[in-house]
């Protein structure tokens, strides 16, 4: 399939030389069509009505197995060679092709459907001076289109004008990069002036020159020539496909890249056909088997030549065909044996494998324990070919937001003036667990309260009502010291827009406790304090940045009092407190530790009253500094340091970044199963670390958590190396050693072995450093260091980097990877990993659509892996072992027989038995085993996650196991051939007539074989359901029934030449010695296996054996897992004030300049690859901090996510 795709791809490339520069003239389709740019139609489907049959057959015959069977079929019609009738191959082959074609066809129909749905979306296009509604697929590069609020962006557009002042538009980029806050794009003034004037827009004839299509989401360079002027364009003027327009009534854009050339599509990566490692190994084995087959045939062909040479005079009775001498006879025999021995690679293997995978996929779809009732989402196995790989996962790459967390912040606890609020105690003073039922505080006294906010500790409300001054100051601070914006559409219905959910949570908390932030202008902040409206004059915002880790505001109260309010990371704030609050500091520190122990993000709050005259002078200097031309930042920082001193501590807050249910338990289970979890997130380092701690990925007990944040390649390399040496000093400075290892098909690949280290380590690396570390020269260093750590967290990574990290591990580790995510930014990673899992029902569907499995909650991952994956793997391995066993045994008997039939390619069995053996007699029992088998049930699987480890180590099916399997069947075939041989040698029936004839011998051998393999199946099967019993006994019964039927008089008289075995069953199976032979053969086949397995269990029991023993002993379900006490960590606190901002928005709030100023390059310099953070308006996703979560995950709720427009200053 893949090659087919690439064939077309190649074709496209050849047809057109690589694009160097894109030139577009607006509204000039003729000109633009010269360049043959892609139109906006996307195509992910592979076939159409007419191409389906030839293409699909072509693809199918590319599978080595199918081609092989076609070849066999051709061999079989050559009379000199044909040792078997043609129907022995045709029937299975047609069956296989039909099943696969049906499956491919239905898959492609689905792709067609989704393509059609996307391609047929409507958009307004400006054509010939008027707006026409067109389908997406008809949009062309150079068209001007109009987008409306909440529309998806059709293609990559150059923003021309918008309904908003200053030509701004707001977009949500969650589908692209996973960031949930709104971003702002601004059009050029010269185009923006055209506004909604259709005449001007259709007369617009600007010429655009820009970079060719690429996948960089954060960069765009180009120029616009218009009215003889040249304007430079950057990423801030471009709307990318995949974004959604928000809070903007309309906007016009010029299509730059369309369809497959859009950055979204370029980023989504190639669709690769995923295959499991078992698949790959099976292919390798099949090749080995071919070689083996050729070897056997050669031996037999040589044997035949020798036989013909020596026994040449048997020609008295059996003359040779014309022109056939001994050597040529050997040659013909070679091919005859190729046909006979082809059953070593039976075609039904592939069909059965597909059926088993399909069945196991259905189990995933049917699992009620992976069904999420709240959003009515069952788990879905979207790919049905990867199941057993789920049992071998070694690395999990997880997104954070929306995957581990719900992206909901809640204000959980606070400490005010040395008193801790937020916990609920029962009468005996015992702290209560918070549950849904815990009584909530009633905020009805406050008409402006947010009904979704909940808090359980009543004492805090009482403190507020009692007008405790510290408590009031605390909430006043929260209401004043922030950069959020408020919108009040109808009286009392407030919506906050904060740049991060954390801040939103704090402002909302203040609002509910009676300090309602109502509105702001650049100079004032209006709050309602306990029902009284008060306007504070906002004098300065001392903004947040990464170094300062705090923000302050200086306000003048209506009474004229000057105050500085500061909130920030506790360590930073503590350094700047007045010595008088040392006592309070101690108590608060305790509280902070407690909060941190609960996994909360903490902030310390402090304030200070300012002296009017001092402030005036400070303000003067501040003004000078902020207008200084050089060293402005440093000067400002100095000033901030100066004023943020000797503050008085108010208290601390604890905010919970709500994890999804069961995340930490799942992670613990998975790590007990020896699965390594890497978190790859677009979030900030602090946020990511925080989550790492709260979901048990990073632990305080860890020996060390390394942070790599270098800004140059050397620095990064040094940091990685230092970390490695710390973990394992003996690895030294030397370069990374690679244990080279040969791979199949001569494809050499280097493998990095796992290295054991003492202690547990964690590694945190940011996107910036990752960009360097992923370089060819350094990737091994990175991988080696990272793999020594128990946990790896990569933050601020781009979608492509996520994929690169996955690829890196895939490349150098012989391990199976799984990527799990929920947003479009995870798509590339999901596609890159061996297994992609999408969290459904969260942000859009992109992740789900490109995933292999999807479900609604992260915690289902443990069931998917530890239960379904493990079983699938176990079943597949058992299946393969058994399948190879039964076919080898079947085939080898022919090999032995060759020595007694003059190497003439005579079959041992009846031709009908050969046809039906795989298709009928042994098909269902082995399918039954591979669909129902389980070593221990799901509860025990959870109880002992260690059971998962053998899968990672490939212990159930490997080349060794395969070799054992071959030896085993070699033995069995010897028994199956030679016992009947010896027993029938020169003997006769009990009435003196023939029983050693060919037909009786065939019947005896095939019966022995079938019974022996059935009993072997019984030994392999660990879980005998009624269905299994039915299949096994049924198959045996069917065998005897069919045998008697086709050996009967009637069928012989009808089809005389096809059923020559008439009467054999009757005349043979009534003989005592025949049955004694069957019994002896069976016992001899089975006994050594039983003895061997029993010995292994006695001497070297595996984990499975032990658990199964335990199950047997307890004879019941496992004890319920011990109720886990909440793990409390006691040490270092992690400040939450890092949250999501790279840079505060203070100057944006206070200044109007920002709207007119071109974006400062300050933050773009931050990283060559990182996305520019939302620099403009603080517009988070309001749903982000609703304490009850997003009301619903359904798409129709889009309007509830709708943002109010960013603050509109009336004066603008």
């Amino acid at each position, binding site marked *: 399939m893949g090659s087919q795709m690439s064939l077309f791809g190649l074709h496209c490339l050849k047809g057109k030389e690589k694009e160097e520069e894109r030139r577009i003239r607006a509204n000039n389709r003729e000109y633009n069509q010269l360049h043959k740019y892609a139109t906006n139609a996307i195509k992910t489907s592979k076939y159409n009505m007419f191409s389906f049959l030839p293409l699909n057959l072509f693809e199918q015959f590319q599978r080595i197995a199918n081609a092989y069977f076609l070849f066999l079929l051709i061999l079989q019609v050559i009379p000199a060679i044909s040792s078997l009738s043609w129907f022995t191959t045709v029937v299975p082959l047609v069956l296989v092709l039909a099943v696969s074609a049906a499956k491919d066809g239905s898959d492609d129909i689905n792709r067609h459907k989704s393509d059609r749905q996307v391609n047929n979306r409507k958009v307004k296009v400006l054509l010939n001076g008027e707006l026409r509604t067109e389908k997406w697929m008809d949009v062309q590069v150079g068209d001007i289109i109009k987008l409306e609020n909440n529309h998806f962006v059709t293609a990559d557009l150059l923003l021309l004008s918008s309904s908003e002042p200053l030509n701004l538009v707001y977009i949500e980029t969650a589908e692209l990069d996973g960031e949930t806050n709104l971003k702002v794009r601004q059009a050029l003034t010269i185009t923006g002036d055209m506004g909604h004037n259709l005449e001007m827009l259709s007369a617009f004839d600007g010429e655009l020159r820009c970079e060719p299509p690429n996948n960089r989401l954060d960069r765009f360079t180009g120029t616009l020539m218009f009215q003889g002027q040249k304007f430079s364009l950057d990423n801030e003027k471009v709307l990318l496909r995949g974004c959604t327009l928000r809070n903007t009534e309309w906007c016009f854009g010029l299509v730059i890249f369309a369809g497959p050339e859009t950055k979204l599509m370029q980023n989504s990566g190639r669709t690769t056909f995923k295959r499991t490692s078992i698949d790959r190994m099976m292919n390798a084995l099949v090749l080995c088997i071919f070689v083996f087959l050729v070897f056997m045939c050669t031996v037999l062909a040589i044997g035949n030549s020798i036989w013909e040479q020596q026994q040449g005079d048997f020609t008295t009775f059996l003359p040779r065909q014309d022109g056939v001498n001994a050597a040529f006879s050997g040659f013909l025999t070679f091919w005859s044996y190729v046909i006979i021995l082809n059953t070593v690679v039976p075609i039904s293997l592939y069909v059965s494998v597909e059926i088993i995978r399909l069945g196991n996929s259905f189990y995933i779809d049917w699992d*009620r324990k992976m069904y999420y009732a709240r959003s009515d989402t069952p788990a879905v196995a979207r790919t049905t070919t990867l199941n057993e790989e789920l049992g071998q996962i070694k690395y999990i790459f997880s997104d954070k937001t929306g995957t581990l967390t719900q992206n909901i912040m809640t204000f959980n606890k606070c400490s005010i003036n040395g008193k801790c609020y937020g916990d609920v105690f029962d009468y005996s003073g015992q702290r209560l667990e918070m549950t849904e039922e815990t009584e909530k505080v009633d905020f009805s006294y406050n008409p402006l309260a947010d009904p979704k906010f909940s808090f359980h500790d009543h004492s805090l409300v009482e403190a507020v009502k009692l007008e405790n001054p510290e408590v009031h100051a605390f909430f006043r601070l929260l209401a004043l010291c922030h950069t959020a914006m408020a919108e009040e559409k109808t009286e009392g219905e407030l919506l906050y827009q904060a740049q991060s959910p954390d801040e939103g949570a704090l402002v909302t908390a203040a609002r509910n406790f009676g300090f309602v932030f109502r509105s702001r202008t650049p100079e004032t902040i209006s709050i309602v304090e306990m029902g009284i409206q008060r306007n504070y004059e906002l004098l300065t915002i001392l903004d947040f940045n990464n170094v300062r880790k705090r923000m302050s505001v200086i306000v003048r109260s209506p009474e004229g009092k000057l105050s500085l309010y500061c909130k920030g990371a506790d360590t930073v704030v503590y350094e700047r407190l007045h010595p008088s609050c040392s006592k309070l500091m101690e108590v608060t520190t305790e509280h902070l530790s407690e909060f941190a122990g609960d996994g909360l993000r903490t902030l310390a709050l402090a304030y200070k009253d300012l002296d009017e005259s001092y402030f005036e002078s400070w303000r003067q200097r501040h003004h000078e500094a902020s207008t200084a031309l050089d060293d402005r930042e440093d000067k400002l920082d100095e000033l901030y340091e100066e004023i943020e001193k000797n503050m008085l501590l108010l208290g601390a807050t604890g905010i919970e970044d709500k994890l999804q249910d069961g995340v930490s338990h799942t992670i613990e289970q998975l790590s007990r199963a020896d699965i390594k979890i890497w978190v790859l997130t677009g979030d900030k380092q602090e946020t990511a670390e925080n989550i790492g701690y709260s979901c048990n990925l990073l632990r305080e007990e860890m020996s060390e958590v390394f942070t790599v944040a270098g800004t140059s390649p050397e620095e990064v390399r040094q940091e990685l190396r230092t970390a490695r040496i710390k973990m394992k000093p003996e690895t030294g400075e030397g370069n990374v050693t690679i244990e080279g290892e040969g791979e199949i098909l001569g494809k050499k690949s280097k493998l990095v072995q796992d290295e054991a280290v003492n202690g547990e380590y964690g590694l945190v690396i940011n996107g910036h450093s990752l960009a360097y570390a992923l370089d060819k020269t350094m990737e091994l260093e990175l991988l080696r260091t990272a793999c020594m750590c128990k946990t790896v967290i990569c933050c601020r990574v781009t979608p492509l980097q996520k994929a690169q990290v996955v690829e890196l591990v895939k490349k150098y580790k012989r391990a199976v990877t799984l990527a799990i995510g929920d947003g479009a930014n995870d798509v590339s990673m999901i596609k890159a990993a061996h297994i992609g899992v999408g969290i459904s029902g969260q942000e859009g569907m992109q992740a789900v659509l490109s995933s292999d499995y999807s479900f609604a909650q992260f915690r289902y991952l443990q069931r998917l892996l530890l239960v379904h994956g493990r079983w699938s793997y176990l079943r597949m391995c058992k299946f393969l072992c058994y399948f190879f066993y039964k076919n080898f045994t079947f085939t080898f008997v022919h090999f032995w027989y060759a020595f007694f039939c003059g190497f003439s390619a005579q079959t041992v069995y009846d031709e009908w038995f050969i046809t039906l053996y795989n298709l009928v007699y042994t098909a269902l029992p082995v399918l039954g085993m591979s669909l129902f088998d389980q070593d221990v049930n799901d509860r025990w699987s959870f109880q002992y996650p260690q059971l998962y480890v053998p899968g990672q180590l490939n212990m159930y099916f490997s080349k060794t196991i395969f070799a054992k399997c071959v030896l085993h069947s070699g033995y069995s075939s010897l028994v199956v051939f030679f016992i009947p041989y010896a027993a029938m040698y020169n003997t006769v029936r009990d009435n003196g007539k023939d029983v050693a004839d060919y037909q009786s011998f065939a019947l005896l051998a095939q019966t022995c074989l079938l019974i022996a393999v059935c009993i072997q199946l019984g030994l392999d099967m660990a879980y005998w359901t009624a269905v*299994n019993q039915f299949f096994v006994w049924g198959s045996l019964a069917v065998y005897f029934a069919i045998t008697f039927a086709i050996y009967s008089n009637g069928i012989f008289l009808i089809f005389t030449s096809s059923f020559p075995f008439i009467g054999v069953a009757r005349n043979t199976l009534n003989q005592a010695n025949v049955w004694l032979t069957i019994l002896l053969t069976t016992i001899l086949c089975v006994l050594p296996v039983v003895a061997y397995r029993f010995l292994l269990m006695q001497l070297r029991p595996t984990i499975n054996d032990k658990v199964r023993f335990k199950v047997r002993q307890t004879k019941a379900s496992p004890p319920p897992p011990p109720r886990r006490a909440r793990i409390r960590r006691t040490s270092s606190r992690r400040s939450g004030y890092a949250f999501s901002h790279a840079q505060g928005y203070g100057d944006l709030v206070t200044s109007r300049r920002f709207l007119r100023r071109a974006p400062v390059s300050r933050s773009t310099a931050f990283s060559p690859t990182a996305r520019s953070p939302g620099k403009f308006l603080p517009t988070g996703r309001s749903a982000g901090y609703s304490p009850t979560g997003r009301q619903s995950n359904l798409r129709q709720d889009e309007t509830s996510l709708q943002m109010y427009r960013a603050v509109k200053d009336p004066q603008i």
Partner: protein
Amino acid sequence: VMASGYSAKEEDGHHSGALGPAGGAAVRSRKPDNTAFKQQRLPAWQPILTAGTVLPAFFIIGLLFIPIGIGLYVTSNNIRELQIDYTGTESSSPCFACSQNYSWNMTTPCVCSVSFSLDQPFESNVFMYYGLSNFYQNHRRYVKSRDDSQLNGNLNSLKEPSKECEPYRTNDGKPIAPCGAIANSLFNDTLALYYNDPNGTETQIQLVKRGIAWWTDKHVKFRNPVGDDSNLTAIFQGTAKPVNWQKPVYELDSDPENNGFINEDLIVWMRTAALPTFRKLYRIIEKNSSTSPTLPRGNYTLKITYNYPVRSFEGRKRMILSTISWMGGKNPFLGIAYITVGSICFFLGVVLLIIHHKYGSRSSSADLTH
């Protein structure tokens, strides 16, 4: 008895009845059905190889197999069997001359006699076999070189034999009946047995030639073609005899029930052997009186009309006289095999028992950690 346990049915925790939309008007939930099959909770028997099951199994098999083996061995030993190789490749052999001057279609048959004596009498019915060695009746091209339709009396096939019969399909443009290499190579030595009375007279022993083929072969698989004429000669008109045969198929026997395709010698020969060394039933010597043995102790002469050439491919020809038992002819293998396997089982049982006592504790789950 294998250790077993039925896995208890677990509660799912959700009762679809209680939670499901009671009114029925609500949107159908996508919640999967709670069936044992879909939730993979089918009740099952989960056997494990425990010491309690494996060791007794070994002992029981051992104790069962040894007596069976002894029985089989004794039975086999009680069968009287006599083999006489009359190939005649050695110069001392009476048939040496015949074997040397061989040619198909010899006009004067070569006859040789072999004398032998029985030390012990053969009591019950005696079966007389001819045995061939190094004769590849199981060669692929040989096995398929026949036309079952023709042998079943199909008139079309009689005139138009299957291509499988090549090169023995036609002769001089006439279809061969029966066609093919198997029929062509029909064993055509004639064996006659004489009892040398101590008084010197030679009595020919009555050999029964009917009832030597399988009933199904004789009555279903092989049938003479039926034409307007009941005369076989007329029906086979227009066909040729197999190249190596001296007589056409309709002259194989004078008995109409044993002539043509249903001649039992032909039927027995057409049932090809599985192995290159085989024996085929030739004649039966029926027990006449209940008092005297079928073949009393004494001297016998076997007179062979030597027609069948095997010397060229180093084949051997034998005449075998044998009595039979409930387990068929003489073959000590099964008995020995049963005794051996039984003993090994018993021995293995003991070894495993010792190992289990020494190391068995390893498989206990004591060292399992949660």
